[in-house]
């Protein structure tokens, strides 16, 4: 693995709700090397988004609260930074791309002002410099007719165009790390592929790293170098992408892979994982996956599995994983 850029260790985030404390993120450790593309995959509600919000220091409080762990970014623990220092890191050194490009763009401000404001606050560029850089960024994300698009508003653009705008915003200050939270989920399949291709290319050109959050293993296969699988707020498996697809170890990962439809296979029946993610207010004592797991044994009910490291870059949290 390349030199580490972001090292998250033992991250814990809870949500204090009226029904009790929701353990949204439990002991999550994630590492991203310089120039690497790393995926976090898991179904809705497994804590992917809360993990990135915790990294960015953007967990809404109340009800959220980061209760422990370290977020080492380029040698500094982001959790120890003051609000002002964190503000200079967000957007400037860590760019973020969101899921729904309609709601994450301000409907009443022009595209130019929404990109330009970052250049003003982080880079102190003059008005003319900002105009030039905004147009340059729009060209970089391959927006046709950027001279017209700068003056337009989000509702005047298509979904794919808006997602390109979000990417342009995220890369506007040449950040070392980009976090993309489900960047293609709201888009048509054809547009998805274009956006992923663009994202990979841009990350490669800038020499930055990408942390890609998705529920779509297809996206992971196309884009990532390494991947973390999350379930019920915990990382259950970590592996390089080809290894994960070739020899998945955790029963949950196996289940996810088995439910993918492939063009080169004929199936009479679709496979689906039974059950849903457990309620994170009353976390089970044992393994969180036990109720849905085909390989569960007695110990799975009573104790959570520890982390078994298989190599430098792979590991699994399961009592009965496949070797």
């Amino acid at each position, binding site marked *: 693995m390349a030199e580490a850029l972001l090292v998250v260790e033992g991250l814990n985030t809870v949500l204090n709700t009226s029904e009790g404390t929701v353990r949204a993120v439990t002991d999550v450790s994630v590492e991203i090397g310089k120039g690497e593309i790393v995926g976090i995959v898991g179904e809705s509600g497994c804590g992917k988004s809360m993990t990135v919000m915790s990294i960015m220091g953007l967990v809404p409080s109340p009800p959220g609260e980061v209760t422990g762990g370290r977020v080492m970014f380029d040698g500094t623990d982001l959790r120890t930074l003051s609000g002002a220092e964190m503000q200079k890191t*967000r957007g400037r050194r860590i760019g973020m791309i969101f899921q729904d490009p309609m*709601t994450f763009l*301000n409907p009443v401000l022009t595209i130019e002002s929404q990109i330009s404001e970052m250049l003003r606050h982080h880079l102190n560029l003059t008005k003319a410099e900002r*105009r030039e850089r905004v147009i340059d960024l729009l060209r970089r994300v391959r927006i046709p007719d950027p001279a017209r698009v700068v003056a337009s508003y989000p509702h005047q653009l298509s979904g794919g165009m808006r997602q390109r705008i979000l990417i342009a915003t995220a890369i506007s200050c040449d950040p070392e790390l980009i976090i993309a939270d489900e960047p293609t989920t709201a888009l048509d399949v054809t547009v998805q592929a274009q956006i992923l291709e663009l994202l990979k290319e841009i990350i490669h050109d800038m020499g930055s790293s990408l942390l890609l959050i998705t529920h779509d293993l297809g996206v992971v296969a196309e884009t990532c170098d390494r991947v973390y699988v999350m379930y019920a707020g915990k990382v259950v498996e970590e592996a390089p992408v080809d290894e994960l697809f070739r020899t998945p170890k955790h029963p949950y990962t196996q289940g996810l892979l088995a439910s993918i439809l492939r063009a080169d296979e004929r199936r009479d029946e679709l496979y689906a994982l039974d059950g849903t993610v457990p309620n994170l207010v009353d976390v089970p004592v044992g393994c969180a996956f036990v109720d849905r797991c085909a390989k569960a044994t007695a110990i799975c009910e009573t104790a959570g599995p520890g982390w078994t490291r298989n190599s430098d870059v792979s590991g699994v949290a399961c009592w009965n994983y496949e070797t």
Partner: protein
Amino acid sequence: MKGYRVTSKVLPGTRAVVEKSAANPARLSSIRYVALKVLSALPMLLGVIVVNFVLIHLAPGDPVSVLVGETEPTPEQLAELYQKLGLDKSVGRQFLEYVGSILRGDLGYSYVLQNDVLGLILNRVPATLSLMLTSLIVFTVVGVLLAIIVARHPKSLIDRGGSALAVIGYSVPAFWLAQIILLVFALQLRWFPTNGMTNSRYTYEGWAYFTDVLHHLILPASVLGMRYLAINFRYARAAMRDALSQDYIVAARAKGLPEKRIVFHAFRNGILPVITVFGLNVTDILAGSILTEIVFGWPGIGRLMYDAMYARDYPLLMGIFIFVSIGIIITNLLIDIVYSLFDPRVRLK
């Protein structure tokens, strides 16, 4: 944290695009929007004139018989009067002449006050506008500012307290509040005059005149504005809280923008319902200003209307109706245009 600079080079050919972008094509849609709005106001104006015309004709009694009163004119004299007043012509003809006279700015003649109606109204316009607009604008701005502060601390003591006060603020009837305020601030404390727009013992000019009017203005404007302070506070608070919970605010935070800028993002959206409500309030405040003008002896249009009603001065009343209606249509037109400046989405639909 160590220093960090932007390293990416500008793509070749960007310069040319930047120069091209200087010509902004977005203006065209704004001009078209304004033109459309102005055109759509015209039928409304016509509607107001028609309603006013019908009202005059529905009014009981024959205008000529009112004019002649107890005297007993000959049929020839009556016919001459009808002809002189144009009442011998067809209804359609009369309507066209009515429209023509309004277009010329002729709103009729008040026999009670022996004066031209338009002149009488225009005389009162500065007093009413200074009361209405000061009150509406100052208290709307204050209400919105308070809401912005409060929206950032939801469920705090000032949030709850402010909301409770706001409910009281718009429940209290203006005539009652006016008398209480008069009793306390004018009669007991003697900080402000009880009545009028200027001190009639002196004839001030320039700056002294301005401060004298301001001194007289504070009490009536506060009574009139209390309601709008409360309404705008509630609207803006809800709108700001809604805006602050939107995804684009999360995005703005993720961009590392300062808090000031984040509030600006919310404000640009939260102000929209306030603009709409402002338009409604302009109409609403007219009713309030009649009461306030009467209690405080303010020489405005509301007072004029009140006097006209007591004197059964129909030409003057009708003149005020049409003048006020046109004023409201124009105000709403302006509000629509201002709204479109704040919300680009309405411009293209």
